[in-house]
């Protein structure tokens, strides 16, 4: 007879920091968060180079940028509900809140497109324009990525090839979406408030 550690009764999936996907997502967040931090550092660096900021142009209009900020802040609610439904393996509510989250992301992308028209500069006007367009552009690619992720997950949830790991995917996607939201707030401050108040 030999001693054995029998693990067959353990569950075959887990949420949150117990799951490997959560850690992988956190790794992505660390990478992209660092990129955002460096872009913001570049913005501050470039600001030091010139006497007036923004140089020769008006600051970006507040309307669309503030609207997108409002949309992302409200979208915390459907995102939280999606995450909770997924972690309860509640298919009906997961489907519902995924669709609502998707619609919010879609509304955001429309407002974001209009936001680009109100920056009062072009990427090739000067270095200020370059960094503002890059900041907004890179954040937008994150949002578009999350829009596609959410859409694909919703499609999977409706087509039915399901097991518990798909709910883990939904939960981790919601976790990532929190990052996309939270990273927007400092970028909003840099793009919209910095030219006015510093």
């Amino acid at each position, binding site marked *: 007879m030999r001693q054995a550690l029998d693990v067959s009764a353990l569950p075959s999936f887990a949420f949150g920091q117990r799951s490997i996907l959560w850690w992988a997502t956190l790794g992505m967040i660390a990478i992209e968060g660092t990129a955002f931090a460096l872009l913001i550092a570049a913005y501050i660096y470039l600001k030091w180079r010139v006497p007036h900021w923004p140089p020769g142009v008006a600051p970006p209009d507040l309307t669309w940028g503030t609207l997108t900020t409002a949309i992302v802040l409200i979208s915390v609610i459907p995102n939280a509900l999606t995450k909770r439904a997924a972690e309860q393996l509640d298919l009906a509510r997961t489907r519902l809140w995924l669709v609502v989250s998707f619609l919010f992301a879609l509304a955001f992308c429309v407002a974001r497109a209009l936001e680009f028209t109100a920056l009062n500069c072009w990427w090739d006007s000067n270095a200020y324009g370059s960094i503002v367009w890059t900041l907004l552009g890179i954040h937008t690619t994150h949002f578009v990525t999350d829009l596609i992720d959410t859409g694909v997950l919703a499609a999977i949830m409706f087509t039915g090839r399901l097991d*518990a790991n798909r709910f883990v995917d939904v939960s981790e996607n919601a976790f990532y979406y929190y990052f996309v939201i939270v990273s927007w707030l400092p970028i909003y401050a840099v793009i919209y408030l910095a030219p006015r108040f510093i």
Partner: protein
Amino acid sequence: MSATIVAREITADHIAAEQQQLARTWAQPRGLIGFLSDVDPKRIGMRFIVTALVFFALGGVLAGLMRIQLAVPENHFLGPDLYNQVFTMHGTTMMFLFAVPVMEGLGLYFTPLMVGARTMALPRLAAFGYWMFLAGGIFLYVSFFLNIGPDNGWFSYVPLAGPEFAPGKRADTWAQLITFTEVASLVGAIVTIVTVFKFRRPGMTLDRLPVFVWAQLVTSFMIIFAMPAVMVASTALILDRLVGTHFFNQAQGGDPILFQHLFWFFGHPEVYLIFLPAQGLMSTLIQAFSSRPVVGYVGLVVALVATAFMAFGLWVHHMFAVGLPAIGTSFFTAASMMIAIPSGIQIFSWIATIWSGRVRLEPPMLFALGYFVIFILGGMTGLMVASVPLDLQVHDTYFVVAHLHYVLIGGAVFPLFGALYYWFPKFTGRMPGRGLGVASFWLLFAGFNLTFFPMHVLGLHGMPRRVYTYLPDMGWNTLNLAASSGAVLMALAVIVMIVNVIQSLRSGAVAPDNPWHASTLEWATSSPPPPYNFYPEPVIDSRDPLWNDPADLPIVIGVRADRREVLITRLLDAQPDHRYHSPDPSIWPFVTALTTTAMLIGSIFTPWAVVWGSIPPAIALIAWFWPRPSMLNDETHPPENARPELSAATGPP
């Protein structure tokens, strides 16, 4: 529901049957599609290693061309334009296509084995990383042969590499190569971190992790925080060149120095991305060939972590000649000198290990001892150039060339060759030839010092880097000729190694599981390891399981053998947590890499390639992600039925 200790009758028949089932489940897929779909960490790691060694050989040939050119004054073997490309290609190849990927390859191969896992986390992501690395390397060399190889140095400074002074596509080639290699490194880092955190065999607590795995873990964290800087720098460079942004254009409020800051915020940690895994290799080799646990395990791990932190506070020491404020440069001088503290801890720990152990002078140990001589010399010149007044004298001279080669070849290539020799039996199932191993060490050691030691003197005599030739009356002739003859010895050393590999593969003695009597888990399985790595899997009870663990430790049972299942354990104490169905082989990582390659190369020519070119990789990624019937978790669907399991699955960690 939890893991329980039970008593079981486990017969040899039972073990054989389980091994057969595991071999079927984890078998390598067949054919070309199978080759491209493979997700075995050992084969992905080996592909990284072999590809990186091919690039090492190519980079070595380029170095040889430079040494031919510089052997005599006023030589016309290479013209100035080609020489610029050759030294840029050499640096870019060695940094991005050899040193970082080869360490990543060793990490992918051995991290799962050393933590006692059947595979690694996110294996498809690792496969994707390999294909991106390969595509980037091929892209660079095809560009070179089409005369659009980069020619602005491996760090591609603006304004020289900007739109004004670098027309054509050469600088774009460099910037996009960076994208390829950074994607490969970043995904490798995530895979490594998750594997170390969640895939450890029960009992392998963090303080029992082999030092090599610690080094890989710390390196992965550095990659995550360093690579984004070069991502930002190279993207801004491409944008300046392609769509007319002004990040680095002084006339429009930009600043070329910003590029240097961003590049070196990555570039200095980059040196440690190469050096830290090599430190892990050193601890591995010295422990194995001193036949005793390494002295000062905790100190070694703390030194790795400390070096990683300090690495992010050193970047300005590459920019002392820029003319930055003195208070800033003083800070970076102090920070640079502080690196000597963790490096010293490591070196003294190793000396103590050797001193108190029973040393066996096998070829891997010779390479490890070579490190001491060469790396410490490089560290000494490092202290010298960390000081601003001295640095200003030798900046951009051959003194710096000598310093960086002493650090990188001594600090990384010697341990690497030692490690490749050490793990050769595990890779291939054959013992490497000892005589040729010793010969290659001495050839490399002598050749290296003959090549690079004279460069210190050349630098002090004022010979600048990156000149394609020099006048005969500068007093540099003899030392240059000596350096070039040293390069011949180094080439000979590499040829001897290749002969040794071929000979050992064909007629080497068959390797047992643990030919060096080492202590870590990769030696607990056959040479080469089966696709599923281990069966049976006893729990871990000490830092050196093969030396200390009793033979009757409980073995892990209940991980399914009829699908690619792994046991996930908890982060700190490595207690069993849940079982996980690891992804099956898939062609989609390859397709995603291929389509991403098309997008990245297209983006050199038109910005629209980014817009339209993103669609195929997005489709490939969706196909990659889309659930397959074979991957469905038959224990948890339909989801309504899974609710009772929920409380166990979402309970406290």
